[in-house]
């Protein structure tokens, strides 16, 4: 049993933390969201050059990490500065799936940062159900025709390609017919828009898009297992990001309590706030342990892994809400203002409960998996 970082990970953490502290300013975040692509090219390229994308892949995949604790490390650091570069969507999800389905070539370019693949899976009616795929791919001549809608495809305006899930038969919810198709982004049409918490996403409208045979990734109808594993890794990543956000929010709030004077003393001297802040701290420690639990069980058997997925996402969601609401409350008015540093962090943390299943979704799922 050992909870220390390896030397390599320690180096990565130190370097990444230093780089992000220097690079990710409020201006950078604001102008990224304001831009057409919704991201910062500079930051993306910087991360690629540092090899941060590579840290999300195993050595056989051409990276130098890829374990749960590598994901946790990288995304906690991204969370600390509130960065929203699409490493999760393009690295862990699209990249991870392409790597697992044996697309070495493109994965090399993804790690290099030159190819950016968005992941289009969720649909207007799927809510948080990973197995809900309404979009269809029908064989037509020497290719496929894709039909359906994909919603909130994050970083689509920043992408060079898009990886799309569609059914090649069966009916909605049937996991044995889900296939993946890789397209250049200019092959599809979409409407894009900004997001709470930063960045842009797109609504993808597939009304009979014809794609070549070669667009099919892996074999027909066999994407599900890889999809569920990639989802587990994505939940690890976003939970670690949440943890990083919580740590920065905690620091901001503690400093505020120490310095803000009211009724003639720092408000941190008021016992009611001290005790509530202590409870917040305890819950953040719980969140850290939950992330460790999940990161450490990604390679376990399916039920064990997925129980940890749901346990961790549920706990992250509950603690996230507590941290958001208590930090705003303890800040008072200033905590309500867009321009103060807290605003971006709490919005981003709040939105994490709206991705990959919310608190209740995973509580129910944990119960089902435990009964199984």
């Amino acid at each position, binding site marked *: 049993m050992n909870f220390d970082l390896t030397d390599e990970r320690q180096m990565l953490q130190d370097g990444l933390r230093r780089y992000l502290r220097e690079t990710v300013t409020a201006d950078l975040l604001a102008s990224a969201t304001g831009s057409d692509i919704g991201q910062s090219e500079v930051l993306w390229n910087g991360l690629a050059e540092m090899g941060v994308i590579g840290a999300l892949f195993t050595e056989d995949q051409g990276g130098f990490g890829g374990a749960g604790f590598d994901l946790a490390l990288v995304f906690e650091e991204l969370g600390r500065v509130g960065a929203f570069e699409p490493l999760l969507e393009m690295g862990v999800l699209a990249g991870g799936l392409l790597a697992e389905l044996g697309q070495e070539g493109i994965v090399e370019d993804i790690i290099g940062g030159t190819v950016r693949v968005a992941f289009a899976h969720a649909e207007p009616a799927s809510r948080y159900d990973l197995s809900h795929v309404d979009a269809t791919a029908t064989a037509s001549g020497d290719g496929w025709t894709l039909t359906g809608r994909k919603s909130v495809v994050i970083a689509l305006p920043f992408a060079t390609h898009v990886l799309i899930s569609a059914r090649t038969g069966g009916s909605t919810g049937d996991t044995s017919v889900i296939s993946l198709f890789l397209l250049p982004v200019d092959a599809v049409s979409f409407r894009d828009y900004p997001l709470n918490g930063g960045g842009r996403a797109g609504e993808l409208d597939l009304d009979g898009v014809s794609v070549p045979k070669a667009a099919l990734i892996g074999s027909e109808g066999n994407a599900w297992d890889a999809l569920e594993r990639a989802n587990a890794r994505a939940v690890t990543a976003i939970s670690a990001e949440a943890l990083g956000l919580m740590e920065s929010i905690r620091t901001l709030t503690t400093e505020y309590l120490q310095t803000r004077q009211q*009724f003639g003393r720092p408000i941190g001297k008021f016992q009611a706030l001290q005790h509530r802040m202590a409870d917040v701290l305890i819950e953040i420690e719980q969140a850290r342990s939950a992330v460790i639990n999940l990161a450490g069980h990604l390679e376990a058997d399916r039920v064990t892994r997925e129980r940890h997925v749901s346990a961790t996402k549920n706990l992250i969601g509950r603690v996230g809400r507590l941290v958001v609401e208590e930090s705003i409350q303890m800040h008072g008015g200033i905590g309500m203002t867009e321009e103060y540093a807290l605003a971006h962090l709490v919005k981003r943390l709040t939105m994490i409960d709206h991705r990959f299943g919310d608190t209740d979704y995973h509580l129910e799922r944990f119960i089902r998996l435990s009964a199984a």
Partner: protein
Amino acid sequence: MDLNYTDEQKAFRAEVRALLADKLPTRLSDKVAGGKRLTKADYEEWHAILNARGWLAGNWPEQFGGTGWDAVQRHIFEEETTAAHAPRIVPFGLAMLGPVLQKFGNDAQKAQYLPRILNGDDWWCQGYSEPGAGSDLASVKATAVRDGDHYIVNGQKTWTTLGQYANMIFCLVRTSKDGKPQEGISFLLIDMDTPGIEVRPIVLLDGEPEVNEVFFDNVRVPVENLVGEENKGWTYAKYLLTHERTNIAGVGFARAGLASLKRIAGLEQDGDRKLIENPLFAAKIAQVEIDLMAMATTNMRIVAAAAGGQAPGAESSMLKIKGTQIRQEINALTRQAVGVYAMPFVSEALDEGVNAEPVGPAYAMPATQAYFNNRKLSIYGGSSEVQRTIISKAILEL
């Protein structure tokens, strides 16, 4: 003991419903129900409609053109207008300044300002809070120095709601540094067009410029704009705060929010069922509904006592805390209900006549905004922490 309205009260409620059916423009109620942005003109339109009926000033005595309603009637009016998604009555002139002028203003001030409030000639805003003061209202730093028949005002106010629409502001200013902080405060009426005043918007978490900073740089204010006596402003301010506390429980808002939450949860698909059929989510809705049923009765008990002449004291602190908890929980559940579509933020979609299609269901984005915006409920008007301290001192005597 009788939980039902009297026949008179039921008749009054019928009158209110009739007015809302006849006179509330659908264009306005749709905007309110849909969480769209209300313009200055929208508010003024609704004020004018109510004024025409003589129902604009619910807490003014008839002699000043008010309704002379008792607490129960005011409650019924609040309940019905909120349920009908009418725009709220902008409180600064009507609920706040009016009563102060009526009690402490001189005849000239009453004659000049009260009719203009009713007729919508003036839009007032509130100059109480200052940066860094938080809930400690008495720590007023903005100064007013007498210079002939003017005061020279310098300093800064903040959290000034809808200040961008206002042409007049009532301010607490420091006219003396002697004695306790409460003792050197005066209550001034200031024309926003006076040279030296600058208004800067503050954008809140939901992206809306709801409040403002107001800067005063050697602003000359005629002495006749002083309300009551110099250095007695704190008394008037406290009087105003008690009036601000009408409808502090927000029962009407909570009921409207709960109805909308149920509607959304009935539309959202959750696997092979609607979200409202999800037992865990249904339980959360039921829990907050049960709390609201009890809180509404607590509110009626205090309203009835007020109608009976008892001034609500620390009880309104209890109502503010519980009412806020309930409304914020409803906001949180509604945000949760909209799922992934809580993420898109298309600000233009909130404006009328712009055809920026919302992303996902039209109710999604307003749900997220309302969650963030209503975090303010437990902060402003005396934070929940301040209210708990009031309760422990006044009721528990701790």
